[in-house]
Structure formats: structure tokens, C-alpha cells
């Protein structure tokens, strides 16, 4: 039977990760990370390549054994109760490969047959826009179609928890937005989702809460709004003026944290933005200068990442 609405208890913890450690030889892939995922939320692990996101998700899936710490998923230990757990979770790999000559409907029917509880293959194909491609061989699917099939495969057992490892990596922006819509549909179904990504906009758009990872450690955890607010970066103002003005004078304006000039424009980091804008207008009037253009940009998770790690995310 296909369950559109996963049954869940609001705010109960579905995944608990405590002080997780994992080494590959001398390399410490995970260095004591801890977080909980609540039932019904979309939780994101954000970080650059090599941050430890995939290792974390694979430990949660039961595919890898941790060297230390504990993990509980749906009340089960993935390392000890892997087969039972696999009945209750659905997962999508970073890249899903199936035999070239396997058809879309064959793949869905085959994988659905492995589970005690399975979703309707017909509805899944409809939901993921694969109905027209049902008889198409895997080798003839486009990148986006392959990814949609991978997502559909993650749902064949109508799982309580969906684990998505970099679901949009390598896709063009249009296909990426297509996948975003599908994942947003999971939210409507109140499914619990853990996704890893190194795309900032993906985490901001899709996730209820985000854990920022870097070099095997959790550097920040919260809702995107909380993280941005906590970062203290403020808004970024880009202004063009009728007459040039010294940077040292701009820095004296109330609320300006930092400023620099590039291509004839001035970039001000302001906190709070509203106070700075009012002060800026007063300052320009006193200088008989005019504001020709102004853009206001809110800080992003990328800014948070830079502030937390001192490095930019590598896409």
C-alpha cells in the first residue's frame, strides 16, 4: 500500500548521532560529530568535498561501521540491525548505476520486491515523471531522469527516513530545480529526510535545519535563519555614488562593520542594515553627494561557512 503521509510524532527524534568517529587509515574522516534529526524534518549536512558528509550518511545507512560513538536510526543500531533498518529507510547514492539494459519499470518492480512493504510503482513513476520512460533502458535515460529514478528507488519501500547523498550533484541548474521540487514534495508528505550537499542554495531552500561540516567536524547547527543571524555578518550593501568618498569616512557610518571598493562601487557590511542605510543617507546629504544606485544582499550560508571555517566552499 502506498502511504502518502508518513505517520510520525512531531518533534520525536528519528536519528541520533553521538560523538561519531571514523578513520580511513591515518585520515580522520569524522572527529566526534553529534546531531539529532527530528521526525518530519528535512535535515541537511552541508560542507565541501571531504568534509565527511558521505561517511556520515553511509554509517547511518549501515553501510559503514563507525570507529567510535553511537548511532540510532528509527530506534535501531545500523551496525547491528542493518537488514531490519533497510526495510524502514530509503536511500539514494551520490551516483546510481543500474545495468544498461534494465528498464525503468523493471528496476522499480525489482527493488520494490525486496521489501516487506512497498509503494505503488505506478504512482512513483507518475510522481517522478517517469511514466513515459517506463520502458526505457537505463543507458538511454538522461542525467536528470537517472536521478529521478534514483529518488523513486529510494521511495519504493515507502520509507520512514529518506537519505539523499548529494542528490543534485553534476546536474545543470534547471535539472537541479526539478529535483528541488521533488524533495520539497517530501516535505509535503511529512517524510523525514537527511540530505548531504555542498550547494548552499540547496541547503537554504530545502532544509529545515542544517549542520555545517568541515574536515570531519560539525562547525555549526541550526535553521538556515538561525545560522545566518548567528554569523553576525549583517547585510551587504553595494552602492554607487555621484562623487567619490574615502573608505575611512564610510567606515565611520553607524552600523558599518567593514567596507571596500571595487569597480567604482562601494561594498559595505552592515549590522543592522536599516540603521546603516539611514545613517548613510544623512552622511551623503551632509557631503552634498548623491546615491546613484544601491543593492542590498542578505548574508548566505556561504558567508556563515566562511566565517566558521575561514575558507570558501569549493563547488
Amino acid at each position, binding site marked *: 500500500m502506498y502511504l502518502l503521509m508518513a505517520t510520525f510524532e512531531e518533534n520525536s527524534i528519528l536519528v541520533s548521532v553521538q560523538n561519531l568517529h571514523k578513520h580511513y587509515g591515518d585520515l580522520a574522516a569524522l572527529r566526534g560529530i553529534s546531531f539529532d534529526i527530528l521526525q518530519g524534518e528535512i535535515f541537511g549536512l552541508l560542507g565541501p568535498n571531504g568534509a565527511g558528509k558521505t561517511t556520515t550518511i553511509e554509517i547511518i*545507512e549501515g*553501510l559503514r561501521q563507525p570507529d567510535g560513538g553511537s548511532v540510532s536510526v528509527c530506534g535501531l543500531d545500523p551496525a547491528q540491525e542493518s*537488514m*531490519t533498518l*533497510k*526495510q524502514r529507510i530509503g*536511500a539514494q*547514492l551520490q*551516483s*546510481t*548505476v*543500474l*545495468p544498461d*539494459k*534494465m528498464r525503468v519499470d*523493471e528496476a522499480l518492480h*525489482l*527493488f520494490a*520486491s*525486496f*521489501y516487506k512493504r512497498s509503494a505503488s510503482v505506478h504512482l512513483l513513476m507518475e510522481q517522478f515523471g517517469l511514466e513515459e520512460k517506463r520502458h526505457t*533502458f537505463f543507458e538511454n535515460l538522461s542525467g536528470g531522469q537517472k536521478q529521478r529514478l534514483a529518488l523513486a*528507488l529510494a521511495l519504493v519501500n515507502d520509507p520512514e527516513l529518506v537519505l539523499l547523498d548529494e542528490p543534485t550533484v553534476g546536474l545543470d541548474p534547471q535539472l537541479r530545480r526539478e529535483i528541488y521540487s521533488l524533495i520539497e514534495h517530501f516535505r509535503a508528505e511529512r517524510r523525514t529526510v537527511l540530505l548531504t550537499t555542498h550547494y548552499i542554495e540547496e541547503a537554504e531552500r530545502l532544509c529545515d535545519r542544517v549542520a555545517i561540516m568541515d574536515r570531519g567536524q560539525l562547525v555549526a547547527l541550526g535553521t538556515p535563519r538561525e545560522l545566518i543571524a548567528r554569523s553576525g555578518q549583517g547585510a551587504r550593501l553595494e552602492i554607487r555614488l555621484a562623487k567619490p568618498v574615502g573608505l575611512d569616512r564610510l567606515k565611520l557610518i553607524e552600523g558599518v562593520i567593514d567596507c571596500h571598493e571595487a569597480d567604482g562601487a562601494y561594498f559595505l557590511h552592515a549590522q543592522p542594515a536599516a540603521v546603516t542605510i539611514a545613517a548613510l543617507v544623512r552622511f551623503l546629504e551632509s557631503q552634498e553627494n548623491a546615491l546613484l544606485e544601491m543593492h542590498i544582499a542578505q548574508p548566505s550560508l556561504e558567508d556563515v561557512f566562511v566565517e566558521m571555517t575561514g575558507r570558501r566552499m569549493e563547488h
Partner: protein
Amino acid sequence: MPTVRIALLTIRLVMRTKLALFFTFIFPLVFLFVYAVLIARGKPEVVAYMFGPVVTLNIMGSSFWGLGRQSVTQREQGSLRRYRLAPIGPGTILLSNLLANYLLELPTISLLLFSAVVFFHMPMKIGWLTLLALVTVGTFAFAGFGLTISSVANTMQEAQIYNNLVWVTLLFLSGVTFPLPMLPRWVQRLAMFFPSTYLVSAFQGVMAQAEPVRNHWPEMLVLVTSGVFGLLFAMRLFRWEKEEKISTKAKLWSGVFALPFLVMGLWMNTRADPTAMWARSYSVVGQATTTSLNPETEKPNLIENFDGIQASEELLRRWQVSTDSDVSGHSMAEISLLTPGAEGRRHAMRLKGRLAPGPKDAQGYVSARCEVRVPANSKGLRGLEFEARGESRIYQVGLQPPKAASSPHPAINFVPGEDWQNVRVPIAWLTDLATYGLANGPWVLEISVTGPPGEFSLDLDEIRFY
């Protein structure tokens, strides 16, 4: 059931791949026609003899190049990773591969059987169930081989190397390509360690000699054991990801897989006369060719038919008997004129005696030799033939060219029956006519016997080139 579902889907995928279809169904047929036309020359009895090697070749091929490669390919391509997320284990994957391989084997063998019976009138001397049992055991055993190789290999290149090593060895040294009785004795000894030898000889025993399959139970047992070993190894060393490699130490453990063959090979080598069974099956090749001889087109090049000989004394002037007594042995032999000869002719020759153990437990040895002249038109010679009758021992026939009496030349085994039988040996098996054909001087024809102690008796008649 996941195992069956994956297996059935795998078969469907094979059916959609042209190359796989070719190697699964067309390629084995090509082999059957090559063996049946070029080697068996369309003779039904010989086709029955060659059917075993063709089936064994097919089973080996699908195990090494199908099943063995499949697991490595799945791992390298990453398709195993998707299965890993599902609630199924390595056993399901391996058993489904095994089952798909077996289910694909059955129609192929049926096609081979159909072609052999319809196009070459191959006699079916065994029941369907016996054939199915042999195919099942063979497929399982070689699947063990394929799975072991795919488990041990870390990459596809590695798997190719291992496959080729084992494949070529088994192909040429175990009766799959050349009948074992044609091969030197040391190769025959070595062949006793190879599983393909067991399967080929079992097929040839039941297909050509109508032997009950229970006569081959030790070989069958070893084949099944090796299949079980292979499956256990594959489960133990199974890897989902191509990044997971196994250590050299773990690879060495797979040597245990060869243990049943080692035991079997040693056991067969210590048996009194392990090659007799192969030679008995092989004798059908000689028998079968007689039946199709067309007297009108054959030009007999008679060497000896004994009909012009009046007394045994005259026979002794032409034939020389030697035994191991020359080297401190105790074997004895004599030749005598026999009346009547084969097919109601006047005379034949009887070589009779007793083999006794020589010094240091060496086997007894007796030979009868006579000088022969190779006809002037030696380029047209295809072989040597004679009528033979005797008890079920292995005898050898050899033909030594002039001035090469001291250098070793091949001796070909034959096993006479209780009644007169025609034995034919292609000249190429005996000597190299291109090198020696124009040499002047007499050649030496030698009929010899060696083996376990005891009486022996061999009647010979109508020795000729054909």
C-alpha cells in the same frame, strides 16, 4: 524471492545484449560444428565422443567469461552499490548469478543436443536425466571456479589474467580440445588434477560408451565439492564496492579451492590403470571410421596381412619381439600365427605373454616391431590402420622414421575389444611426414604394451596405410 527475481531479470538483460546472445547461443554451436565436421567428420559415434568436450567447453566458457566477469563488472560499474542499499545480502547476489548462469546453460545445451542429433545423427546412449545431472554438476563446479576468480580479482584486468591462465590450461591439457589418449603420458597424468578432465571423461564415458554415470561418482563428488568451495569463497570475499580490495594473504587462501582437485588427481594417479577408461572411450573414434569406409575409393597400402605366411618361423623373421628382460625385467612374450584372421581372412598375428613388475617396481614392458616401407606417394597418406582384438588393456602403436629410431616418437594408445575392431590413427599423430616422408630406408612399426602385471593377448591383422 529476491534470488529468483534477480536471476530472471539477469537472463532478460542477457537476451537484450547482442554480444551476450552470440556468445551464449551461437558460439557454442560454432564449436559443435567445428568439432563434428572437422574432427569427427560427421561420424555419429565420434560426434557422441566429441559432444562431451563441446559441452564442457561451453560450461567453462559461460563460467569463466560470463559468471566470473559478471560479478567483477557489477562491482566495477557500481551497480552492486544499489543492491547494497536493499535488504539483501551477498548470498542473494551470488546465488542469483549462479542460477541465471545455470538457467542460461540449459537452452544452450539443449540447442547443442538438438543440433548434434538432427544434423549429425548422434546416438543418444543416455537418458535425459543423466545428461541433466552431468550438466548440473558441471555447471555448478565451474561456477565455483568463476566465482572464486571474481572474488580474488580486485580489478577486471586481474580477473582477465586469472581467467586466461586457468582457461588455457584447462582447454589444452584436459581433453577439451585434444582427446587425452592422443596426448603424451605426462600430460595425461597432469590432466588428472583438472576438473575439466573429470567432466569430459564422464561425458565421454556415458555418451560414447553408455556407461552408467555412477561409474564416475568420485569425479562427480569432487566437482560438486569444488562448486561448494567456490561459493563459500565467493561469499567470504564478496565486495560491494570497487574500492574494497582484498589482501594478497586472502588471495592465497583461495588456493584451498584447488584442494579437492589435488586429492582427486593424486588418487587417480595412484590407480593401477587410470587412463584405460579414456582410451576405451577413445576407441570409438577408430571403430566409427571403419563403418564409413568406402572400399571403392580407398587405396589400400598394405603393410602386413599375414596371409602369405606359411608358418610362425617366417613370422619371426619379419617381427622382432622384445621385453623388459633386456633391462633386468621378467616380462615374457611370444608371437604366433593365428588362423583364421579378421573377417574370415587366412591368418592374423597373436602377441601373447605376461607382464611382470620390473626392478624397483617398474611396470613390465613388451613390444613387437617390424620394418615397413612408406609408399612412394607418401603425401597422400592419411594414417595407419589395422584390425585388433584382445583383452581390455592399453596398447600403443608407434611409427618411427628411418634414422630416428633412438629419438622418442609419439606412441598412440588404443584399447582392443573382444571382437575384431578397426583402429585408425592419423599419420600426423604418429610422425611428421613433411620432415621424414622422403627419407630413405625402412621405418619401424612398433606395437607395445605396458601396465600392471598379468597376462595379455593381442591379435593383429590387416595393417596398412590409408
